[in-house]
């Protein structure tokens, strides 16, 4: 019997660890849905970008500042990672989602100019590199800046002309397809730039803690403990921001009724950008923590599965509710852990969706979701 108890508790620990990563990503899904009523399918790929940014950040730290303590290096890399992903999330929102809400116009010229300038840099950069004293990074930067400066005025004129004929699109389908497009873009461009070979973070010299409680032996690694603690801290920080600060109040206002919020003087576009920033920085943190402290290898398609499961977790817990996202994520992590360790191990990916369908049948708005009735 102690054997069964040991497995039960150990799988519980494993499940909570898995769930903590799902929670960090699910929060991003749920916040964006709450504010925009829109599922950001590209969110899982922000996690992937976080894993890569963190990878280069920590290797850069080790090369440039080897005298810093591992803790300092990790924290610096984590901050860089969260910053990078925050910028990416804000940029995606500005580039692809905002022009759908507010019809395409002059104000969208610089994001698109930057986007296309990056591609020009990617393709023309190597040619410039060959015929100049610049290395690949320098050539890429110079070409991108020049292309950007050239494209901005061109696009401003073009978008001004196009914009007069367009109305904002409130179609949920359009936004969804755009999100899927961004997701595919990130995955495939990521693979083209980073290659298809799995990457591994440098060894973190993590310790395994074994707890011997009489006949039960439980193990946890220091890395996984740190991930759990970090996830708890970040989630509590987020809940504090959303519940007890003015800016959190603004976010909640926009999620209840964007038009009324705008009438009350809340800059809805900026609040939406902030929501993306918060969600994306959490996903970036998850990417860094999971692969660095969990020591898992990854490549450009790592966001697909994880993003899907985190999305399911958010829906399970009630999309739009942050506590729901955390609850749903923990439930999914635990379910996966118990199923993976049982005889039905090969169904571990399926169990998440089975639970989702079962819950939605009886509680369509999720476990902690608000039941919104449509007034006709």
């Amino acid at each position, binding site marked *: 019997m102690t*054997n069964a108890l*040991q*497995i039960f508790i*150990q*799988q519980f620990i*494993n499940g909570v*660890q898995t769930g903590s990563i799902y929670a960090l990503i699910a929060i991003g899904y749920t916040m964006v849905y709450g504010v925009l009523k829109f599922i950001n399918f590209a969110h899982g790929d922000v996690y992937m970008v976080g894993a890569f940014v963190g990878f280069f950040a920590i290797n850069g730290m080790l090369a440039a500042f080897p005298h810093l303590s591992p803790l300092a290096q990790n924290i610096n890399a984590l901050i860089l990672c969260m910053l990078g992903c925050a910028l990416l999330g804000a940029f995606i929102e500005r580039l692809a989602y905002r022009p759908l809400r*507010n019809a395409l*116009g002059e*104000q969208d010229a*610089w994001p698109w100019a930057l986007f296309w300038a990056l591609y020009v840099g990617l393709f023309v950069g*190597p*040619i410039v*590199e*060959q015929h100049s*004293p*610049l*290395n*690949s*990074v*320098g*050539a890429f*930067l*110079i070409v*991108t*800046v020049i292309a*950007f*400066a050239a494209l*901005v005025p061109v696009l401003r004129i073009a978008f001004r002309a196009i914009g007069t004929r367009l109305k904002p699109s409130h179609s949920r389908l359009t936004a969804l397809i755009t999100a899927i497009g961004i997701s595919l873009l990130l995955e*495939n461009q990521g*693979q*083209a*730039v980073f*290659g*298809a*070979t*799995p990457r*591994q973070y440098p*060894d973190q010299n*993590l310790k*395994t803690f074994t707890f011997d409680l009489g006949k039960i032996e439980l*193990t946890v*690694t220091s890395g*996984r403990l740190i991930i759990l603690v970090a996830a708890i801290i970040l989630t509590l920080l987020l809940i504090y921001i959303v519940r007890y600060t003015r800016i959190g109040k603004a976010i909640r206002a926009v999620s209840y009724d964007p038009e009324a919020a705008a009438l009350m003087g809340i800059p809805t576009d900026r609040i939406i950008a902030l929501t993306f920033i918060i969600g994306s920085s959490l996903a970036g943190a998850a990417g860094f923590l999971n692969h660095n402290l*969990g*020591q*898992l*290898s*990854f*490549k450009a398609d*790592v966001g697909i*599965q994880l993003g899907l499961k985190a999305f399911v977790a958010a829906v399970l817990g009630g999309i739009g509710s942050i506590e729901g996202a955390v609850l749903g994520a923990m439930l999914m992590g635990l379910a*996966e*852990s118990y*199923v*993976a*360790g049982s005889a039905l*191990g*090969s169904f571990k*990916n399926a169990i998440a969706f089975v639970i989702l369908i079962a819950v939605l049948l009886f509680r369509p708005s999720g476990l902690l979701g608000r039941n919104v009735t449509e007034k006709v």
Partner: protein
Amino acid sequence: MRHNKRNKPYLLRSLLALSLALCAGVAFTGCKTEEEKKASDSGGAPPTTAAQPSTTPGTSSAGGDKIVVGEYGSLTGDQADFGTQTHEGIQLAVDETNAAGGIERDGKKYQIQLEKEDDQSKPALAETAVKRLIDEKNVTAILGEVASSNSLAGGKVCQEKGVPMISPSSTNIAVTKLGDYIFRICFLDSYQAAVVARFAHDVLKANRVAIFTNKGQAYSVGFSDEFKKAFTRYGGQVVASATYSDTDQDFRSPLTALKQANPDAILVPGYYKDAGTIARQARELNYTKPLLGGDGWSAPNLITIGGDGVNGCYFSDHMSIKDPKPVVQNFVKAYTAKYSKAPTSMAALGYDAAKIMFASIKAAKTLDKKDIRDAIAATKNFDGVTGNISINSDRNADKSAVIIKVVNKDFEYATTVPDPEKPLSQ
């Protein structure tokens, strides 16, 4: 709503800031170092993005006769280590043969032109890669692949179109069963798994073993089945088994279940990427007994991914580069001179496969694909780097396997098991 007039100063200012920042970045990091200048002065080729397939024209003398040989491999992706090493072995063989004048037959000397295609470790892309080699590049014969799943996909096309194919290292039995144009120069999983089973039972004294299979890879599934059969025959017992899939990263839950059965060893017959992570996580769960594997483990990245977790583990392999035989050491010297790193058994297999291919092309009655196929089938007692190679009637090779032990993040030769059906004296 138009905000242009109000945001103009913002836009201009942010543009200026962006440009200044980028210029600063370029000034600090953007200029070439001495080495990079030398490389570009000597006419380095522009870098290509990793996802594009590329072709490498082999050395060819101006106006000489050429024989085009195709190669498809996992140059990127999960098994990139295997693909690149196999390619390096093949390229070394091509360069050596071309430098010695090429393939000589009927008084003419043919230079070998190697056309390579990347399948990113994916069977679907392996199929398109082989189609491209045959239809567009008009290859006479094909070398590839390493992963059995990819060989099965590519071999199907080769058999359909009647192009002889030699797989350097696919060990699943189904590969040569595709048809009479498909060969392999390595041992089978049925042999390899039996070797590991015999070693585990007799040397490690492991009577209870758990198996952790990658259900998405033909290699892993086949290996697990063969191991179970052999291990039970030698008197051992498989006490638990679990499966995982290619996309899994977190193996702690199934490992917890396997550990619960208290096995003396866990067999993980997967590729190095999974095996490394599994070994690491097994140690995190405080499982200290050895993990066992097959030739899928044989890559330097096993250590990078597995870290200290793989110490004390064993796997079967085609050869050890520490073998003092002259043919092995000559190969190691030539490979190290060309690539500035030590070869692996995959590179050696690629080298042997290429050399056997060239020898068969030389010995064939005509340059017709059917005659080349017959010549490959007639290969007997080829003195290869990976051992004495004879192609038998099933188009497989009868060879010995070695056991490698991972010691202090390095591969050490443990022992050779020539015949797993005979008990080992230890």
